[in-house]
């Protein structure tokens, strides 16, 4: 054993596993997601699997048996009716609603590959993703189907299936919601793309299923753990969106890994999980959708958590026991009197991912709800979970926790050699959840997966107990006159000002110092000057870390789950310099 690798090879985090978390990860109990989903459906038949809860409290639900039957019908529709082959890519583009699990599970049961697509994409982004993935069919929500008008002909999509947010609701609530969407909110634009409605597709699938006595399980007979299940697109760090190839094995292992970290707080058949994060995002997809389906939980799907009042009826009407979210969501909830005055009584645990969880948010949450937010860490490329704070046992603030079972993590320097304990290095991961590579991009894959290790591009530090803390993105690091400056550190310092609402820090080329620190600040109120910000910075930061230029903004570019996009700010800056 290499001596410097010792701190990681010893896996000091194993002692933090306690008696609740298994040290070794057993191989998945199923050979495919289709088999996993089918078993869960058969076990929990009459239980409610999904409930969509609208902001006004209107709702529709599907039982496990219904999800099973509808997704079977959809699988038959894809394979038998429109004649897709196994492994064909099928894109799904919709917000959280009952149609999502039916479509996604149907695709997996058909032995096809699910291509999760952000419904807020622009037509150009949609075109790129559909062409890149080679999608042959698309399930899209009617709210955004008008975006297909200009691009459909330029993609390989030959069948468009249109779903709606109140899909599977009973007649009156469905009519009311559609009426409100059409006439009041005006979110149902007319569209011209030739299409079939989801219920009609299901009816055709079901008819074919009965007529031809199809055994749906046969579609996935040849599917194994190494078969491709999902293409999960990620802008990653380089900007151009590429598809992470997640296999059935990747996802089955990762949901087992996630489950292992929380199983002390999960009672099969009794959990109610609030899904306010979008299912097309890998965090909610693996954690809320796949992992909780397997334990017979009821998933409360909220189509949009903004404004945060949209969640009030969900908390009022259901006995929520688990909630997953990002920092901004937890923070927004705690700014609401209805939440803080009567926090959910049945809540057992909350988990955060996607972006760093702020210390103050975690503390307030514990005071208000009596439960802790367990922070985790993951990437699209790792299905996503890599690390988690154990729900039982020690949780460390500002830490992403410890590696989940079956996962090896190391911190390495630029040469790929492990750094000593306590030193900052790039976090690399090995485990059954690591993707197979980027779809049709061997060069990108080779740059990201080296000798079986996934290079995350995140700089982290490990303590002696095996807990990791993220320092920053490697490529966001700023080199000022030979000194390393981590934007996170500068951002944290500036964010401490009460007059500052949000802040992002990037490095820009500079003639004198090589790179200079530039801050983008969204002020909380008018009248904030750059001198005041700099003065504040000098109280917390050494001179070379204090921003050279401070630019005030009304807002900052963000991802759908609220992560600030430094790369967009950089691109903007470069473009303005080039012009």
């Amino acid at each position: 054993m290499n001596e410097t690798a010792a701190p990681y090879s010893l896996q000091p985090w194993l002692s933090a596993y306690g008696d609740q978390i298994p040290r070794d990860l057993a191989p998945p109990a199923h050979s495919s997601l289709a088999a996993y989903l089918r078993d869960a459906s058969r076990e929990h038949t009459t239980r409610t699997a999904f409930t969509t809860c609208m902001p006004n409290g209107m709702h529709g639900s599907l039982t496990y048996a219904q999800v099973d039957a509808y997704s079977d019908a959809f699988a038959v529709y894809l394979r038998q009716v429109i004649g897709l082959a196994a492994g064909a890519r099928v894109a799904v583009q919709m917000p959280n609603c009952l149609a999502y699990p039916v479509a996604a599970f149907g695709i997996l049961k058909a032995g096809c590959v699910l291509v999760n697509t952000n419904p807020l994409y622009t037509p150009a982004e949609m075109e790129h993703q559909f062409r890149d993935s080679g999608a042959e069919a698309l399930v899209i929500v009617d709210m955004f189907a008008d975006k297909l008008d200009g691009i459909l002909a330029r993609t390989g999509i030959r069948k468009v299936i249109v779903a709606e947010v109140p899909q599977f609701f009973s007649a009156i609530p469905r009519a009311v919601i559609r009426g409100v969407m059409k006439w009041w909110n005006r979110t149902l634009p007319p569209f011209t793309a030739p299409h079939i409605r989801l219920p009609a597709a299901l009816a055709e699938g079901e008819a074919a299923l009965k007529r031809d006595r199809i055994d749906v399980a046969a579609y996935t007979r040849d599917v194994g753990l190494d078969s491709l299940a999902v293409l999960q697109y990620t802008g990653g760090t380089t900007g151009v969106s590429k598809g992470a190839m997640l296999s059935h094995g990747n996802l089955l292992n990762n949901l087992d890994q996630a489950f292992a970290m929380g199983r002390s707080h999960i009672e099969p058949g009794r959990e109610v999980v609030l899904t306010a994060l979008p299912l097309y995002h890998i965090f909610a997809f693996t954690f809320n959708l796949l992992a909780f389906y397997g334990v017979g939980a009821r998933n409360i799907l909220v189509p949009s958590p903004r404004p945060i009042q949209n969640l009030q009826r969900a908390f009022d009407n259901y006995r929520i026991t688990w909630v997953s979210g990002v920092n901004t969501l937890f923070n927004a909830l705690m700014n609401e009197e209805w939440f803080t005055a009567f926090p959910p009584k049945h809540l057992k645990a909350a988990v955060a991912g996607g972006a760093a969880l702020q210390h103050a948010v975690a503390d307030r949450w514990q005071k208000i709800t009596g439960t802790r937010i367990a922070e985790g860490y993951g990437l699209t490329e790792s299905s996503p979970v890599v690390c988690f704070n154990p729900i039982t046992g020690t949780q460390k603030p500002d830490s992403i926790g410890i590696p989940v079972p079956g996962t090896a993590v190391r911190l390495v320097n630029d040469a790929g050699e492990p750094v000593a304990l306590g030193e900052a290095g790039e976090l690399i991961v090995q485990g059954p959840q690591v993707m197979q590579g980027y779809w049709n991009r061997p060069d990108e894959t080779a740059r990201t997966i080296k000798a079986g290790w996934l290079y995350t591009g995140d700089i982290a530090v490990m303590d002696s107990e095996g807990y990791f803390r993220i320092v920053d993105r490697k490529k966001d690091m700023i080199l000022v006159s030979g000194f390393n400056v981590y934007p996170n550190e500068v951002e944290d310092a500036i964010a401490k000002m009460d007059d500052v609402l949000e802040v992002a820090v990037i490095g820009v080329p500079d003639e004198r110092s090589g790179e200079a620190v530039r801050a983008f600040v969204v002020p909380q109120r008018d009248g904030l000057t750059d001198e005041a910000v700099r003065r504040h910075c000098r109280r917390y930061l050494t001179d070379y870390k204090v921003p050279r230029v401070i630019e005030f903004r009304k807002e900052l570019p963000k991802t759908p789950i609220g992560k600030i996009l430094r790369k967009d700010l950089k691109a903007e800056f470069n473009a303005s310099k080039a012009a």
Partner: protein
Amino acid sequence: MLTEFETRLLGLMMMVIMLGMGASLTFKDFRIAFRKPQGILVGLLCQYGIMPFLGYALAVVLGLPPALAIGLILMGCMPGGTTSNIFAYFSKGALALSIMMTVCSTLVAVAMVPLLLEFYSQMKGLPSEYAVPAGNVAQVLVVLIVPTLIGIALRKWNPNVGATIELLGGALGIFVILFLVATWVPRNHMLLATTPWQVYAAAIGLGLVGMLIGYLLSKGLRQDDRRSRTIALETGIQNGPLAVLIVLLTFSGEMQQQVLLIPVLYSLFIVLSSSAVTVWFRRITTREELARDGAKVPTGLAPAAS
């Protein structure tokens, strides 16, 4: 005046509206309203402290003749109107607080209204015998409370039914507001032409100034912005039909017609001004919601020394 049939129809519609209002609530909302019980006390103070005095003051300042002064003071002494709850709902206010305030001010009306009327009438040297129909006050309470409770229960039983009824109640609320204005104008348009400006000022001012003072007082007594806006609407909106009824029971002949003038005018203008204020308040509330949504975590640090 409305015919007997129209009055009943209006009562029935009011019940459906309150059913819808109730369906937008849970008992939790009432418990949140009671978390700051001062809100209700502030409301009572506005309702029975400020409004009667405002009516009296306006009558003096505008130099209204006795019959009109009685009408104005009477209007000021009324409990909160049930339409205030519709406006509270549409302005995204604290509906539970609004309902609690209407219920409380109506409950104490039986005792407070005669007392206040006597007090202010004597100050103006006016007759001080008024008939306050306890039965009608009880009816107001029933129309308010029973449907609200049924609405809450329906929503708890089935959120789909609750949301549908809430939507129906809201739609009917808008309809009733339009109905009130639309039926008022053809019946009373003659009044509009012959009424002197002082009477307009009194009828419009009572509601608007009442809202303003109600808001400032609530803010002064440390109610948050949303509660203050709710209390403002509740303060400005009085139970017009009850005032009309008291006049009808107490006065007769020419005097009755004169005393009725201000309650009738008030009933029209309060609907118009409340509608405008509601649109404004709703915008403010929406803006606050969005701001809260994006608000950052309190840092617990003092602002940087500057």
